[in-house]
């Protein structure tokens, strides 16, 4: 495997007083240089946990049970452990912008002073050098340079989010992971953030992007590849257009059809949604985890867990109902 980052059969559970929460349960994903991988699914299906696993940001109650996280096809981050990955890779190789990161700026420090701290720590730059670098990057990304002289509360939510992403990518990391970058923003600010992510890729400031979201319509705009997660597992992976035009897994189908956008196809179909709640990962259902909510479920679905099977052209799906499956 020569990808930039690859998770192989990763299991990471939360321990709780009631037992183990199987948040990431045997997940494999590949990220190649140049990819913009969108990870989509409902809340509580393990997306954010997966982002922490890819970073090896494993802290109790989260526990890494098995699997590999390979960087450049050779270095196993899982074997290195959190502290080593943190000092050697965070910021320079992999960077994560977690959910609500727009609150990550220090309220009592101006944005510029905050960036100086970051650069002093990572690159040992002095104040003037750090300021010049920050200014250059802000200009490149189309952010107003005046934002550097402001306190976080003086910036709008969308601006704060863009500032945080630009700080996270100051060291030109190979991989940028963004967790729900637009969920608290209105449509117009959302578009600016997405434009910025595209720009970071186009200008090769970052090598690849993983974007986690519950809103599939956003992935249409930025992703090259999509992985759909349900109940701690990846149920379908493939090129973005192939998945959105012809989803194979019933969950993928329902998820795509539940998006409310003002388009004739959507209006003709009427409002549809997935009834019920995602499974409790303390006690996930036997067999396919989607079977209790699946409109096409067969008896085999409640007994046997469908493996993720390749269909060619980087397309993988885990469903008993998909015909023409062949072992990969």
């Amino acid at each position, binding site marked *: 495997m020569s990808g930039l980052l690859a998770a192989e059969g990763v299991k990471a559970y939360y321990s709780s007083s009631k037992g183990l929460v199987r948040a990431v349960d045997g997940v494999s994903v590949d990220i190649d240089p140049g990819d913009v991988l969108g990870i989509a699914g*409902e*809340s*509580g299906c393990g997306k954010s946990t997966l982002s922490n696993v890819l970073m090896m940001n494993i802290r109790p109650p989260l526990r890494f049970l098995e699997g590999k996280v390979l960087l450049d096809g050779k270095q196993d981050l899982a074997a290195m452990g959190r502290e080593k990955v943190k000092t050697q890779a965070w910021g320079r190789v992999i960077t994560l912008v977690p959910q609500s990161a727009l609150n990550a700026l220090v309220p009592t420090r101006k944005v510029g002073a905050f960036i100086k701290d970051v650069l002093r720590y990572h690159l040992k730059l002095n104040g003037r050098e750090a300021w010049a670098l920050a200014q250059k990057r802000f200009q490149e990304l189309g952010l107003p340079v005046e934002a550097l002289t402001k306190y976080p509360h003086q910036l*709008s*939510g969308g601006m704060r989010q863009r500032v945080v992403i630009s700080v996270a990518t100051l060291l030109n990391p190979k991989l940028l992971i963004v967790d729900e970058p637009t969920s608290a*923003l*209105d*449509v*117009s*600010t*959302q*578009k600016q953030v*997405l*434009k910025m992510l*595209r720009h970071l890729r186009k200008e090769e400031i970052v090598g690849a992007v993983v974007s986690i979201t*519950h*809103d*599939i*319509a*956003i992935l*249409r*705009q*930025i992703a090259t590849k999509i992985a759909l997660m349900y109940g701690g597992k990846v149920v379908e992976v493939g090129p973005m257009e192939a998945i*959105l035009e012809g989803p194979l897994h019933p969950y993928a189908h*329902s*998820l*795509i059809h*539940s*998006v*409310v*956008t*003002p*388009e004739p*196809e*959507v*209006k003709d179909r009427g*409002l*549809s*949604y*997935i*009834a019920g*709640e*995602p499974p409790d990962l303390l006690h996930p259902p036997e067999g396919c985890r989607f079977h209790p909510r699946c409109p096409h479920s067969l008896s085999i679905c409640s007994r046997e867990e469908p493996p993720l099977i390749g269909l060619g052209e980087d397309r993988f799906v885990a469903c008993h109902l998909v015909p023409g499956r062949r072992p990969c």
Partner: protein
Amino acid sequence: MPSRSRSASMLKVSDLTEVYTAGFLQRESAVAVDGVNFAVQEGETVSLVGESGSGKTTTAHIILRLLPPTSGEVVFEGRDIWAFKTKKELKGYWRKVHGIFQDPYAAFNPIYKADRILYQVFNLVDRDVGDKRKLVREALEAVKLRPEEVLGRYSHQLSGGQRQRMMVARCYLLKPQMIVADEPVSMVDASGRAGILKLFLELRDLYGTAVIFITHDLGLAYYMSHRILVMHKGKIVEEGTPEKILSDPQHPYSRKLIADIPLIRRKWEDI
């Protein structure tokens, strides 16, 4: 979309203005709502659409009588809502006009069980309603929640969608004449939004409830409304049916709002 039965104007907002001021020595002011006029008829769904800071939420708060306007008036069923004198009149108003907010988590008191929010509705109703527990179960079923899954649990044990459905269940108990829904689905998963929007449509069909639906997403407003009002910088800049606004937007701001909606069938060209 159901036709409107009557055309009497139920709520009328005239020349509504709200100016926020801040500072002690150097007073700064910001005009949040700037001379807004509109009317809502019985059974009608009117959407207020605009970006953050366009004055949508301030308008909602004034209509819900949570915030006094700087000037202008809100008339409900022929009476100025700021002229209510007694608590009884106010309670009567809140029984008829009910608010649902963006963050359902904030509406729950974490110390008490989540279903308390449903029983509290009975405080607004003066008459004897009979078996409250039965009514609560019926309301939960109406919003497609399984009573055994939510009754007796605390709000942090419920999902965002479940919490917001419980807020809608209050409307089934109260049967208000008008709901003011302020971004009711923006904190709900994209896949759960349609389900909650459907509940509002069902309420409207069942009880003829009027809805003022506030959102930043024209896409949602398109499905929900009889009429859309586009707000920008405190002013209503365009008004029309969803079809008209989507297919033939006049104001540059409406055009921008439409262009900014991420679509599932089409990729933005300018990204």
